[in-house]
């Protein structure tokens, strides 16, 4: 099968719907909060009552422009809205207000890793503004479908990619990148389980080298990134097998069954809709001018790619830089931390070591982490100055600070008796005593048994009650031994 698959080229495009985290709806001022009691966040406009007039939420424009800038799109100056007509019980007006011929963002691209970890650009066709439908609930009442219109009119951005994905892994990476972006931009929580990020996939396959596209199949209803990946890989195999066995791919909409890991027919092409788009006369055009775009640009939060590049320039390796920028909150904490210390590598190690493992342990987000970045920076400085050992700082002191985050690290170190003796004068006494205790070992050392250094170090540490700075002590011991030679 692997060999046969190699003879085919899958052509995959993704349509993502991102629910925006505005307070009020796209064209009316009722609330958008997730999880409210059914039909409590509605009004005459989102209910589609006659004689009502929609009005555009200015935040939706701003959020669309933010995403457009972040995805390197061209932002359209004159935006118009259109009605997409279809009948469905959770669409009260009988049409969706969307954009048809004038999407706000055109072109652009997102940088992802392909399945082999190489850089790849996924080009975008368009991003346009539209509104969500209500929710149909099929499993409460056995005889009726129940309708909750809280979600009706919640703003969405639809992001349409060019068909440039070659496998499920690339689609997974793209979705992860897109979620990261919308979270950094603070325009959506990007939560697929709550439906604030949804994805439809178009897939066709063609023999390698053939120009004409194969018949395309649309797959819907995948509720996780992993399922999108699985659905794509399943569908590629299904289509290739079908063609290889003499069959023909039929244009249809399929749904992904997560339990079985396969796709099933949802609708055949015969049901294809005729949406009869026409201009929405109730909403005046929106003009997005250059000075508006540059204002949005100037206020754009830092983007993951920018921070990644910055951290690479600060000398962090690719692995550290990508882990630190994985989530916006972690990156912001790190940003704060490195504004207080110049030891970037240590800062990264602190976040990825003790801080992350504490957070994982408590199943906690970094926003709730009790110790301020400033205090972590102080710990780093104290270790660098040799005042406390790294293990004392990341162990006992770290735990004590979590217990009581108000404590001053320097005072704490004193109280906990963790200050190392790095003062050469005080240490020298211990060094002399240690060497005096083992005169024959000193001779052996001089004869070339360098491994004995550990023995002297152990003695120095013992004499100092464990408080000697091992780096300084080791240097002094070696100096003394050299002198005696």
């Amino acid at each position, binding site marked *: 099968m692997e060999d046969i698959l190699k003879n085919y080229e899958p052509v995959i495009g993704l349509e993502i719907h991102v629910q925006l985290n505005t307070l009020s709806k796209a064209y009316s*001022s009722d609330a958008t909060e997730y999880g409210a009691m059914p039909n409590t966040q509605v*009004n005459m406009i989102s209910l589609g009552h006659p004689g009502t007039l929609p009005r555009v*939420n200015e935040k939706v424009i701003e959020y669309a422009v933010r995403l457009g800038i972040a995805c390197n799109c061209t932002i359209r100056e004159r935006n118009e809205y259109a009605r997409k007509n279809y009948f469905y019980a959770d669409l009260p007006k009988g049409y969706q207000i969307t954009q048809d011929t004038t999407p706000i963002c055109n072109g652009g691209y997102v940088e992802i890793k392909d399945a082999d970890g190489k850089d790849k650009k996924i080009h975008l066709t368009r991003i346009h503004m539209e509104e969500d439908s209500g929710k149909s609930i099929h499993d409460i009442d056995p005889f009726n479908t*129940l*309708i909750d219109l809280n979600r009706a009119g919640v703003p969405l951005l639809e992001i349409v990619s060019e068909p440039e994905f070659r496998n499920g892994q690339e689609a997974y990476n793209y979705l992860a990148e897109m979620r990261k972006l919308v979270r950094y931009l603070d325009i959506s929580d990007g939560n697929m389980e709550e439906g604030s990020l949804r994805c439809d996939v178009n897939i066709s396959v063609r023999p390698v080298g053939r120009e004409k596209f194969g018949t395309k199949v649309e797959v819907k209803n995948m509720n996780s990134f992993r399922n999108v990946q699985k659905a794509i890989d399943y569908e590629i195999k299904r289509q290739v097998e079908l063609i290889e066995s003499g069959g023909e791919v039929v244009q249809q909409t399929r749904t992904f069954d997560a339990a079985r890991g396969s796709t099933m027919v949802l609708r055949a092409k015969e049901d294809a809709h*005729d949406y009869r788009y026409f*201009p929405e*006369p109730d909403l005046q055009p929106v003009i997005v001018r250059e000075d508006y775009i540059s204002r949005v640009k100037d206020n754009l939060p830092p983007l993951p790619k920018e921070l990644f590049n910055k951290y690479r320039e600060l000398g962090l390796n690719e692995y550290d830089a990508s882990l630190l920028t994985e989530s916006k909150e972690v990156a912001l904490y790190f940003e704060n931390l490195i504004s207080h210390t110049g030891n970037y590598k240590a800062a990264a190690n602190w976040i990825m070591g003790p801080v992350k493992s504490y957070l994982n342990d408590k199943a906690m987000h970094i926003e709730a982490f009790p110790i301020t970045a400033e205090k972590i920076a102080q710990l780093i400085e104290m270790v660098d100055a040799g005042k406390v050992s790294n293990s004392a700082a990341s162990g006992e002191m770290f735990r004590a600070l979590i217990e009581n985050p108000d404590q001053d690290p320097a005072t704490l170190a004193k109280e906990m008796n963790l200050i190392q003796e790095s003062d050469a004068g005080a240490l020298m006494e211990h060094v002399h005593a240690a060497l005096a205790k083992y005169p024959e070992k000193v001779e052996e050392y001089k004869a070339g048994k360098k491994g004995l250094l550990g023995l002297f170090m152990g003695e120095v540490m013992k004499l100092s009650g464990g408080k000697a700075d091992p780096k300084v002590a080791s240097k002094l011991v070696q100096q003394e031994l050299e002198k005696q030679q």
Partner: protein
Amino acid sequence: MKLTKEQVEKLAHLARLEFTEEQKESMLNDMDNILGFVEKINGLNLEGIDPLIYMSDEVNVLRKDEVKQETSKDDALKNAPSKDTDYFKVPKIINRGEE
């Protein structure tokens, strides 16, 4: 311009209307008349004239992102032909429609 019966049937389906054969005939006549009337516009020289979509030249009629929750659940459900205390009720739908 003459409409066909198939076109009338298609439009009826899209509007979720059902007609008897007789009604279809009468619809066909009525719509032919309407189209014939509108057809007159095609006789005019419309070069350089944009279609009229908006009733004014205003642009950027925007609203601040502020919540005003003015409609209660009870009011929202009031006119529904079928409902319970929380939801609108509609006939069971098996296949999910297009979004």
